[in-house]
């Protein structure tokens, strides 16, 4: 009986020790892992920006950090033991990570997250379904349509290097043709057309992403109206007045200038009628002598008369 008791005691001790040693690995996976693993991993992707989120691991009074790793389809097929630390979130505080710069090919990517608190780390929690960036939600882009004089100008939001824009614009009238232009990048004003006065022009745009072979829906059309019915009439009247003025002033000026030049260069001397000579020069000299004699005779006669009077 005593032997049986001793044997049973030894068996019980061995069993206890065996169980204790068996459970140690369970407690010591990945270091001292008593932190729970993050849950509810999901990727929210809009316009080729991919955000990995998870439920936070809360430890009262402590800040828990997270590590994110990824594996592209290449790694999962050829080097499945290799996980690559995220460029932005090798160690991050928030329960989210922008993995846009990690997801760089249009193949499925696996993502995993674990929590870290000091020396403690949780188990890895892996995204349930691998994420492929061709499932991103593409939204119609924001655009600003402006008028610079008669120029139709559009500025599109900058969505990054993956995006091109297909711009459709037309004149709002029956039977008008729709024009299409591809704009390579946003954030820069783009001239579409020179508009005609009095017309209304409308524009709509969609994004194109060649890397995933998809495009967004078109945005709502925005229209601009070009004023200017009165302006051409005013211009025409001014042009007419100017033309008439030119027709009158220019010939007048030319004539006046001509006269000035004539007087300056080649003046014409005109004798008064009283100085005009109608007889020959010899007769003129003899006439002049007779006139002098007549004058002299006339003078003697006057002296005589004067003496006579005195």
């Amino acid at each position: 009986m005593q032997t049986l008791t001793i044997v049973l005691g030894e068996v019980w001790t061995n069993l206890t020790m065996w169980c204790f040693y068996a459970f140690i690995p369970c407690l010591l996976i990945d270091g001292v892992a008593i932190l729970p693993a993050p849950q509810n991993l999901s990727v929210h992707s809009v316009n080729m920006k991919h955000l990995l989120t998870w439920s936070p691991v809360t430890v009262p009074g402590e800040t828990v950090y997270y590590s994110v790793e990824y594996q592209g389809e290449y790694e999962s097929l050829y080097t499945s033991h290799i996980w690559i630390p995220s460029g932005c979130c090798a160690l991050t505080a928030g329960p989210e990570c922008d993995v846009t710069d990690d997801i760089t090919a249009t193949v499925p990517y696996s993502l995993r997250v674990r929590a870290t608190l000091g020396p403690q780390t949780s188990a890895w929690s892996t995204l349930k379904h691998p994420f492929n960036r061709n499932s991103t939600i593409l939204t119609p882009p924001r655009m600003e349509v402006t008028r610079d004089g008669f120029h139709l100008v559009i500025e599109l939001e900058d969505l990054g290097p993956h995006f091109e824009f297909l711009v459709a614009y037309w004149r709002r009238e029956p039977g008008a043709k729709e024009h299409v232009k591809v704009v390579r990048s946003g954030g820069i004003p783009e001239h579409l057309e020179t508009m005609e006065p009095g017309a209304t022009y409308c524009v709509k745009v969609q994004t194109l992403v060649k890397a995933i072979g998809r495009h967004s829906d078109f945005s709502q059309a925005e229209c601009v109206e070009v004023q200017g019915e009165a302006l051409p009439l005013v211009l025409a009247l001014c042009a007419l007045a100017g033309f008439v003025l030119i027709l009158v002033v220019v010939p007048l000026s030319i004539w006046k200038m001509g006269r000035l030049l004539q007087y300056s260069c080649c003046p014409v001397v005109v004798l008064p009628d009283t100085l005009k000579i109608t007889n020959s020069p010899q007769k003129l000299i003899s006439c002049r002598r007779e006139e002098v004699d007549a004058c002299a005779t006339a003078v003697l006669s006057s002296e005589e008369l004067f003496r006579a009077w005195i």
Partner: protein
Amino acid sequence: MNVQQASLWLLGAMLVLYSVHTHGLRRCQVSMDTRHIEESFQEIKRAIQAKDIFQNVTILSTSEALQSIKPSDVCCMTKNVLAFYVDRVFKDHQEPNPRVLRKISSIANSFLYMQRALQRCQEQKRCHCRQEATNATKIIHDNYDQLEVRSAAVKSLGELDVFLAWIDKNNQETSTA
């Protein structure tokens, strides 16, 4: 031969030439946007090429390999060289630097995507492999096998710009054709 017969003969010859020409044009039209791959490679090129100690040897640049490929063999050759990198080079290279590893992963996954696209062309019988392309592929593999595997992998990674430039050149010729 009278004029009528001569014109018919000429028309027939033109039709034959046209059908041969369009058959050559019915190639695999895949959008190969290698710009982002080139950007990734440029960021790690110096680090990779610094590890290449066999400067007098080349794997891709021999005259019998890429440069002598005819347009009708471009699809097959592209597919084969992509497989060379995906199946051998990336796997044989052990990269300890996380920054470089991220860029190599980006390139490797992009190559995988391109392989899938060319695979669809092959299923539609638009990526036929002639003997010339098969021979040129064998030359590349033989060059690779002549070196120790890690050195060969580093050298092949360092010559990625040769392959990417060749893809670009042939893509432009395909789009202008």
